[in-house]
């Protein structure tokens, strides 16, 4: 019995090596990123082994999920897409009705574990948009655009009212990227952007007071250095005091002495900047760029429209994490709670990110025959 299992495992391994369904470049980059993330977290948490082990466990869970998803051909995923999308919408509504969480309703208690449906949407929304677009004429026209906009807006609005602006932004971005990659004409893009700019004052009207404060603080953090501006100021100090080479691992005073708030989660990038300096930052940004580029390459080589759009939008959404988080900690963008992918402490985003990469791996494994 056990011999049989061992034989099967062996043959699976042999097959995997001969015909790798996991892209070694992407996998290598992700492992490297995870190692950097855990190292940084170990320092940021002031050598809290328990915390780092927990995070590693989540990476492992995410990795297994990635393997499982990668084993399923994209065609199957495509067929299930509408149902998955609908299911995630139902869960979002359930959160709105009976969710729980500190300050914001994001969590659904499933008894054994707590679950954040918005993380699921990060995957199902781009799937849905890709599914919707693949059956239609490309590049999309106005009608298609409006319908896609509705597909995006409903879950994004549900998430934004939790309120979780960061995730809503990421979710919406992944949908928008799908449209962009579908070849939406430039002039249409220009018109939409102009309309968006015109509607900006309207957005201010719908914002929560805390969100408005964040925006005000972004414009002038020194106006309230001990209150709302504290995060930005301390983060900039952490980054700026890092210099070329940083203060060294576990020597960042801003984080170790707790001047930097949220240094395990949203502001962990500032810890990294403080301890590794500009050199470290450039390396890390290069790694992120590599992952995004590799994802886009996989997308370009994908077999069908659905796979292409899905792979492309997942890759580009990954960039949004880095950009929004990096922009936040350097004061380039307002404070929005977006984690630094695979570095910030927190399970759900790591798992959903790795699940997304699982989708990329699946698309890579079932790519066009010609490019094999």
């Amino acid at each position, binding site marked *: 019995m056990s011999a049989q299992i061992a034989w099967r495992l062996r043959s699976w391994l042999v097959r995997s090596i001969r015909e790798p369904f996991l892209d070694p470049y992407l996998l290598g980059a992700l492992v490297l990123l995870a190692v950097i993330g855990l190292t940084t977290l170990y320092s940021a948490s002031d050598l809290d082994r328990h915390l780092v082990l927990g995070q590693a466990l989540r990476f492992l869970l995410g990795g297994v999920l990635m393997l499982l998803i990668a084993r399923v051909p994209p065609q199957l995923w495509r067929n299930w897409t509408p149902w998955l999308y609908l299911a995630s919408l139902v869960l979002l509504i359930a959160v709105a009705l009976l969710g729980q969480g500190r300050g914001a309703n994001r969590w659904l208690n499933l008894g054994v574990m707590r679950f954040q449906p918005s993380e699921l949407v990060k995957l199902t929304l781009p799937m849905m948009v890709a599914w919707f677009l693949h059956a239609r004429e490309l590049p999309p026209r106005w009608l298609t655009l409006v319908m896609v906009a509705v597909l995006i807006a409903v879950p994004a609005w549900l998430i934004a009212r939790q309120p979780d602006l960061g995730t809503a932004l990421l979710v919406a971005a992944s949908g928008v990227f799908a449209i962009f990659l*579908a070849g939406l004409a430039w002039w249409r893009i220009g018109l939409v952007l102009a309309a968006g700019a015109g509607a900006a004052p309207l957005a201010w009207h719908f914002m929560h007071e805390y969100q408005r404060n964040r925006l005000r603080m972004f414009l002038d953090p020194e106006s309230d250095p001990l209150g709302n501006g504290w995060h930005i100021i301390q983060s900039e100090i952490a980054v700026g005091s890092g210099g070329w080479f940083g203060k060294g691992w576990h020597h960042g005073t*801003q984080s170790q002495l707790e001047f930097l708030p949220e240094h395990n989660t949203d502001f962990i990038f500032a810890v990294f*900047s403080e301890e590794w300096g500009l050199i470290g930052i450039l390396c890390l940004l290069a790694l992120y760029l590599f992952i995004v580029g590799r994802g*886009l390459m996989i997308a*370009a080589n994908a077999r069908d429209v659905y796979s292409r*759009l899905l792979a492309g939008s997942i890759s580009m959404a990954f960039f949004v994490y880095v950009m929004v988080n990096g922009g936040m900690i350097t004061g380039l963008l307002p404070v929005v709670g977006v984690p630094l992918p695979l570095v910030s402490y927190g399970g759900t985003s790591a798992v959903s990110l790795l699940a997304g990469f699982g989708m990329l791996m699946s698309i890579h494994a079932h790519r066009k025959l010609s490019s094999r």
Partner: protein
Amino acid sequence: MNKKLDSNPRNRIRDVQREATAFRTRAIVGFLIIFICLGILAMRFAFLQIDRHDEFSARSDQNRISIRSIPPTRGLIYDRNGVPLAENTAAFRLEVVPDDVVDMKKTLAQLGDVIALSDDDIERFDALRKTKHSFDSIILRFKLSEDEIARFSTQRWRFPGVDVVPYLTRAYPLGEEFAHVVGYVGRIDVNDAQTLDAARYDGTTHIGKTGVERKYEDELHGEPGFEEVEVNVNKKEIRKIRRVPPTPGKNLYLTIDARLQKATEDAFEGRAGSAVAIDPRNGEVLAMVSVPSFDPNLFVNGIGRVDYATLLNAPEKPLLNRAISANYTPGSTVKPYLGLGGLELGLRKPSDTVLSVGEFFIPGQSRGYRDDKKGGHGRVDLVQAIAQSVNTYFYSLAYDMRIDRFSDWMGKFGFGRPTGIDLVGETSGVLPSQQWKRARMNQPWYPGETVIAGIGQGYWVITPIQLAVADAMMAARGVRHVPHLLRAEQSGINTEAELIPLAPAAPSIIRNSENWEPVLQGMIAVVNGGGTANGLGKDFPYVIAGKTGTAERFSRTDESWTNIMSVAVERHQVLFEAFTPADDARIAVIAALEAGHTGAHDAAPIARKVLDEWLKDDDDKGAPEKGVVAK
């Protein structure tokens, strides 16, 4: 393909290859946009980390490094023989960290049941809170009693953020005896805080308020040290980076002899007055007493309002340092100086005599100026005039001298201006002159006022220290030394005390040294030659020279002259000045009583007791460098 067919998606045959190429273009454009965005992000990092690195580095250090000053230990004060006059003793105080207190009002109210808190304490605490951070520890009460500490310890759990902290408090072991000389320290108040160097006094709670404690605040205070501490965001200390220890204040050795001081104070037996003893050779103040006195220890940790009001309003004015700031009419004590002036200015020869008939008249005036003795003393020369304190001799001399030369000459003895003793609050007294009267009263000078000035009456008032300095000048044949209280300084426990160099003395005011002899003879005769204080020198190994003074407490010329005390117990202010050994004096002493019968009867015995005590220790007085004990 026709256009209509093409526009209908259902009919359109998808061009897979074209779509793939279009996607590829979009993907490349997308990648470029991302590249540019990340490039902007990288530039932002570079801007913060390279361009503004110095600024943020500084702010990061500012965040983490907290500089805490360590207040220096105050220097001690000893007498000339090393007897401690001001010490630092261990005590406990109550401190509160407002950040750790949940409900300040409630906490203070509950604390009040355990530890006595006066309204003053609370008021000061509230004022301090406004000037400090809420994470600073703020002093609520000084000097807890043992009972209070014990009570608090058992209930400490009730008061988070409140703690008993050890500290050094100032103590004056000899209390009242040195209250006016040494003075006292008190809590730094708002007025002090405005003038103090904030950096030097960071962490210091007390400052010299009066006496030597105030005058030598700079020397006694020392230099604060500091600690560079790495702190976290809650200002909690993580580790020490650097510590520069404070430099303790200098220890001071005074010129005062504590034994002599005590004997002097005892000699007053509680009667209000003042006595000063000076070494005429160098101006060292050996004793300086002002009676009544008060307990300086009351002031150190905040005197209560009631106690303070009692001291302040007491009719006998215990807070007043009479020795340097009370006015006495000098009376006959000035006669030797005037006599010397007569010789020096060539108005009299020692052998010149004056006939005393009981009354002196200014030529052409009918108002008489009386002698003490009915019918007069008969014909007297200078020696006899001093010995018997014959008014007529000095009426006539003053009249001949005229007021301008008179005040010039007396000014040389230091009357009418501060002596320059190293204390704060010395007053000038009044040496009358034409200018003074014009400035003060806008009136011309009358010859009769010169006449009574000749016997130390009228407008003329002196402070005891002025008389002591004049007495010491007479003893030192006209050489004036600035009176001083500081003898030596010691910079550290292991260093030798260093004598303070004397200010160079001015040349003698006596031009013809022979003129001094008859005046000295007169002063010797006061004590030993049947003079006004005859018998005072009995059984004393050295010859004592002296002069009595018995001043009217009410003026003869101006009945509206305000009396010094509201209730007149006795008629006179009485004074006595003396020095010994007469021809080579090592001590000059004066005593002044606010109320007494005569100078000889009441003031002279005090001076004798001072000299008796001084005699016991006479050997030590010989060498100025002896007596300082290095601790």
